[in-house]
């Protein structure tokens, strides 16, 4: 459902992604693994249309490379950026509803989707009326996930969602992702992470980005850590 063909992204004179090609199928849960600065965020931002790039990105068999960024969420793509980036002037619920208002969804469809968000993230209902500027960093990530769920009917992209979450909240977040999977088996998920161990349990595929190149990785428990291959020093 999502395909990169020879995508190259240059930022400030540096080629951050180099001729990257990959294909992701509908309903995949993909872990996008890479060290800090490897190019994970750049990959997601390219899908959103926020980078100057060459090559081609196809979504549902359509070339979206030239599609204006503001039109991409309308294809059913929800994106929760690395930092939570809520709109602090509004309440939590207003933040979640805003994508539906922008897309001019009917009241009925908006209610249905809000119901889906609250099923997956019931805690958001309790803080619905709070100003988004007043919620904690971890809660903010939950709200950002809720907002992405509101538009992400086909593809949901989460950029380092576990980064900086307290252990209890991280477990809650992972649980919410599993609920989402059960609730919505067809949606495609891309989750970036610098620590592959965290995604082992629910990703079914790993893509590893390293020095601007993308390759297939393994998430099996006994597979070598794709970022830190066992050091040869132990061999006699």
């Amino acid at each position: 459902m999502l395909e990169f063909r020879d995508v190259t992204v240059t930022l400030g004179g540096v080629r951050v992604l180099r001729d990257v090609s990959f294909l992701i199928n509908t309903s995949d849960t993909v872990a996008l693994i890479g060290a800090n600065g490897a190019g994970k965020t750049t990959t997601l931002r390219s899908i959103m249309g926020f980078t100057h790039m060459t090559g081609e990105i196809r979504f549902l068999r359509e070339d979206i490379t030239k599609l204006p960024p503001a039109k991409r969420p309308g294809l059913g793509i929800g994106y929760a950026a690395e930092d939570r980036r809520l709109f602090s002037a509004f309440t939590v619920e207003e933040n979640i509803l805003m994508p539906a208002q922008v897309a001019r969804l009917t009241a009925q469809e908006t209610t249905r989707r809000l119901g889906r968000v609250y099923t997956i993230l019931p805690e958001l209902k309790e803080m619905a009326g709070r100003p988004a500027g007043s919620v904690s960093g971890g809660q903010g990530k939950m709200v950002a996930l809720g907002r992405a769920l509101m538009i992400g009917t086909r593809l949901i992209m989460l950029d380092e969602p576990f980064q900086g979450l307290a252990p209890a909240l991280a477990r809650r977040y992972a649980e919410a992702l599993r609920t989402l999977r059960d609730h919505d088996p067809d949606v495609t998920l891309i989750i970036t992470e610098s620590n592959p161990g965290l995604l082992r349990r629910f990703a079914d595929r790993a893509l590893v980005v390293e020095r601007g190149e993308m390759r297939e990785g393994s998430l099996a428990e006994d597979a070598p850590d794709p970022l830190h291959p066992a050091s040869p020093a132990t061999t006699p």
Partner: protein
Amino acid sequence: MNLQLFALAFFDGIAYAALVFLVAVGLTLIFGVLRVLNVAHGSFYAMGAYATASTVGAIVAAGYSPWLAFPMMIIASALIGGLIGGPVEKLLLRRIYDMEEVLQILVTFAVFMILEDVQRLVWGVQPYFESSALMVLGTVDVLGITYTAYQLILLPVVAILVLVGLRIFLRHTLSGKLILAVTEDREAATAIGVNVDRVYLVTFVVGASLAAFGGALASATTSVIPGMGADMIVLSFAVVATAGLGRIEGAAITALLIGLGRSFAVYLAPELDVLVPYLIMLAVLLVRPEGLFGMAHTRKI
């Protein structure tokens, strides 16, 4: 300073602050979204004044009611904001958003110069004076002073209505919410499907119309002359910088502070009157570089 002089300075200050606020709030709204310091903002003030003075003059000369001046002010400012502000954003400013700040300011300065010439071309260089709106509202007596109701009551009331109206527009209409969202985080807004180009255009037209409305209201109290736009842009820059960029309520309070400061200076230290707004700005920025109501951290663009 006796009570009457004090009251006089106070009333002058409030009336002046109301006008400054209208222009400054438009400027701060535009800066918040476009991130461009728009020098051409003063031109919209001047054109609002010219358009109102000339049309109201013609209406009254043709024997129609001077009360028509009030709807004319609103129509003239909306037309200036939409018909001149709209194309300026869409055709010119849109090309400069990725440029360095210095270049942006130079371009908006060029737009300002072009619009100055347009004013000379359309309205000539002779002053316009058209105070029908001021006359028709009469005067009020307060504390032994006779003052025009237009300046003492209408201008402050209009400024408060604009402030409240703007708040309601920004918080409770979709266009307004999108303006706030883009002000806070352009990329996050795009990521939920907001067409940022359109928000820029709407913001610019609203901001330019507010400046034109300030000019329209001012035209009843003063001669409309070439150069009035330049005076106003400098003053509203002072207000916006003192308040902190992008702050709407802050612009209102700061306009009041600077308006009052200036009018008291007129009576107490006339030689300082033009300097006072900048002295206030300097004093505030030395203590709080982010402005009175600005946030300490810089927002991500």
